[in-house]
Every structure is written in structure tokens, then in C-alpha cells.
């Protein structure tokens, strides 16, 4: 539990440095998600690189919504979704909706999944990834009135689910290395 709650009493006003530190800790998950998303756009020249952007955004939102929901509020998810729509050339609103729904699911299952191991969170993420790419595909088809090839949606679902461990391991490390603002 938070240290502050364990020692009640009057404390001196927080210093500027302390407040900056808290803000940095609270803003860390959203910032690292956005930086990772921008990094996927760099010209690496890898085939299928475009799919990395939604994969990373969804995995980050899922991870932080599960393990640090206070620092990944719905408003931050909304912002990340807008950025994803803009960077990924999707019709506006599609990724916003998908990420918000994934965030809602993560919040709902948080109590259960928080106690399970890594394998379980991954297993729960796989259907979420599949659902996310299916919903995106349906919305893109509906909004552009054009039948998009379904292969890319399947590829996106598989890549997103398969890529999760690669991302979750460093994120889990960062989660431990940068403790929550409330925990200090």
C-alpha cells in the first residue's frame, strides 16, 4: 500500500522537485506509449512495418491499463487513439473506439488478471487483439465503403498477439523500475 497512508499526519508541503517527480511518474506510461508509437514510424524498411503501429499501441494500452490504470486513464487512451488514427491513416475515431474498448475490458478483468501469471495475461490479450483488428477492419470497410483485403486484418491480429511478449517484458521491467507516484 502507499507509504503515505501508512504514516498519517501533517507533512510539509511537497517541493517543486517532488511534484515534478510525481508528474513524471504519472505521465510515464502514456509518454512511453506515444514515443514507442512514433518510433514505429521511423524508416526501418521492414516489410509489414505499418502493422507494428497498431500492435504496439494496443499492447501498451492493454499492459498499462492492467498494471497501472491510474496512469492510463480513459482520456489518455482517447488521446493515444487519436494519434494512432492520425499516424496510421485510419478513418478518424476507429482506433479511438478500439483502444477504449480494450481499455474497458482490461479494467473489468484487472482484479482477476492481476493475480495470474504472465501467460494468462497474454492468453487474455490474444482474443482482444483478434477482436481489435476485426472491429477496425469492419469500421474501415463501413466508413470508406470499400471492401478491404481481409488478409491484412488477420496478419495484424496474429502479429499483435505474437508481439505482446516482446513488448511486455521490457514494459514489466519499466513498471518495476519506475514505481507508481502513489507508492513513494
Amino acid at each position, binding site marked *: 500500500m502507499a507509504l503515505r497512508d501508512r504514516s498519517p499526519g501533517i507533512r510539509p508541503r511537497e517541493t517543486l522537485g517532488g511534484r515534478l517527480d510525481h508528474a513524471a511518474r504519472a505521465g510515464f506510461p502514456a509518454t512511453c506509449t506515444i514515443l514507442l508509437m*512514433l518510433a514505429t*514510424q*521511423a*524508416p*526501418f*524498411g521492414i*516489410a509489414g*512495418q*505499418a*502493422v507494428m*503501429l*497498431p500492435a504496439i499501441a494496443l499492447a501498451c494500452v492493454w499492459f498499462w491499463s492492467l498494471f497501472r490504470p491510474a496512469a492510463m*486513464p*480513459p*482520456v489518455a*487512451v*482517447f488521446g493515444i*487513439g*487519436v494519434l494512432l*488514427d*492520425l*499516424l*496510421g*491513416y*485510419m*478513418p*478518424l*475515431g*476507429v482506433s*479511438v*473506439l478500439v483502444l*477504449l*474498448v480494450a*481499455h*474497458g475490458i482490461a*479494467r473489468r478483468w484487472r482484479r482477476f488478471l492481476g493475480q495470474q501469471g504472465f501467460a494468462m495475461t497474454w492468453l487474455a490479450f490474444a482474443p482482444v487483439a483478434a477482436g481489435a483488428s476485426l472491429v*477496425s477492419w469492419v*469500421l*474501415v470497410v463501413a*466508413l*470508406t465503403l*470499400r471492401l*478491404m*483485403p481481409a488478409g*491484412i*486484418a488477420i496478419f*495484424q491480429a496474429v502479429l499483435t498477439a505474437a508481439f505482446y511478449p516482446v513488448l511486455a517484458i521490457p514494459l514489466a521491467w519499466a513498471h518495476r523500475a519506475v514505481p507508481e507516484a502513489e507508492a513513494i
Partner: protein
Amino acid sequence: MIRLSIPARQALSKLTLPVLVIAAFGLMLLGKADTILAERVRMALNDSLGPIYSVLAEPLGAMRKAVDDVGDMWDLRAENAKLREQNEYLRRWQSIALALDAENTRLKASLHWIPDPTANYVTARVVADAGGVYARAALLEIGPNHSVKKGEIALDERGLVGRVTEVGSRTARVLLITDLNSRIPVIMETSRARAILVGTNGPRPRLLYWPEGVQPQEGERIVTSAEANAFPANLPIGTVAHTVNGVPEVQPFALLNRLEVVRIFDYGMGGVTAPEAERPTPGRH
């Protein structure tokens, strides 16, 4: 700050998610109602990110080349032999081409042929993929004082790449010929029959609507047609390659998945431009 009671705050925090979900649907409607808004915001974002990616492009390109070079080292000998053979072959072709060129110039001179206007072009570096999952496009860094306009034509050193669809203050987006929304009037070089080249988001666009009695031949060269005034005639696009089901597709000459530098030509074509490009914009300077 407004102080709220704890139950009120809890109720509000429960409401945030549904409200934002509704806002997401609102955003979809907004994007549908005002397509130019999303385009403007996107180009503004690209303009600010473009310089970063263009700085990154060089070291990343060098790294990719180094990796490719290691692979090339293995079959250096075989490659060398192949190149020597190809060189011989091309030398023969060069003499034929030179002779034909001279003959062509002579014939044109005696026919008083009106020469094709030479097009202005600028060369730009491809800094990022600009297609996302459901489109095929490239982002070009064109510098702050550019004269690139919508509808101009992008070529790499081998063939047609696509058309400029969005222009920002220092970046431009080129829709590739493989994009699902790409439609290009073409001519099959041997039969001189017209057709439409339709993008599928796959690596090879498809040929459609060729006239009856003509069949696209395997390996036939496909060039642009001047019809509809969108492209100048005879820009090389690719060669016909049939799928296993016998559907004629075109293997592009341009290396569309490894674009590094493209040239943007201004042929002064205004045949097909987006509606907003034609609309006068009073009051905007």
C-alpha cells in the same frame, strides 16, 4: 479546483469511459463530414515529424545497406559473372538504342514533329511509410520552400511510383500505384490497347477493362496513357504477369517496397484533381 464529494467523483469517473466511447463515434462522424480537417491535421503532424524521420533515415539506411552488403558478400563471384554477361547484352542493346534514337530524331525533324514539353522535377527523400495498414503511400520530405502541388507525378529511377495526394508545408504524401484507391489509365505497349490499372493493396496492381479481342501478354510492357489528362503518355509502369488463376497483374518496375529517393515531375496536368484542390479559397493567404 472544484471540490466534489467522493460518491460524485466516483460516479463521474465511471462515466468517463462511456462518454469517451460516444465521443469516438462523434469523431467518426466528424471525420466523415469533414475529410479535409483530418487531412490538414495529418499533414501538420507530418510536417513536425518529417525532419526527425529524415534525420533518422540516413543512419537507418546505412545500417540496412550494411546488412544487405554482408548478404551480398556470399555470392559475389556468381553476381560478378552474371553482371558481366548482362553488361555484354546491354552493350548490344545500347548500340541498337543509339541507332534508333538517331533515326527517330531524323524522322521527327523531317515530319516537323512538335516536341513534348520537358517537365520540371524535384528530387525528394522518402522518409516514412504513410499508408498505415489499409493504404499504400509514402511520405516525402520536400523542404520548406517547395513548389510541389497535388496531382504531380512521382517516379523512381525505374518507373512510375504514384501521384502526390497531399502537400504540407515541408512534406508531401504520394499515393502509390498499388493502393486500393489507385486507378491509372494505361496502354499495353505491343497491342497498343488501353486498360485501367487498379491497385489492390497487394504488391502487384491488376489490369482491368481492356478491349475485347485483345489479351494482355505475359511480359508485355505497360506504360501510362495520356487519356483523362492525368498522366503524360509513355511513362514506364511495369510488365504483365499472370497469376495462377490467369488474372493479369502488373509487376511494377519501381521498387515500391524499398523506395528511398523519388523524383516529382510537374507535367502541368490538371485532369484529375481532388475537388478541394479546385475550389477557390477566398481569404486564405
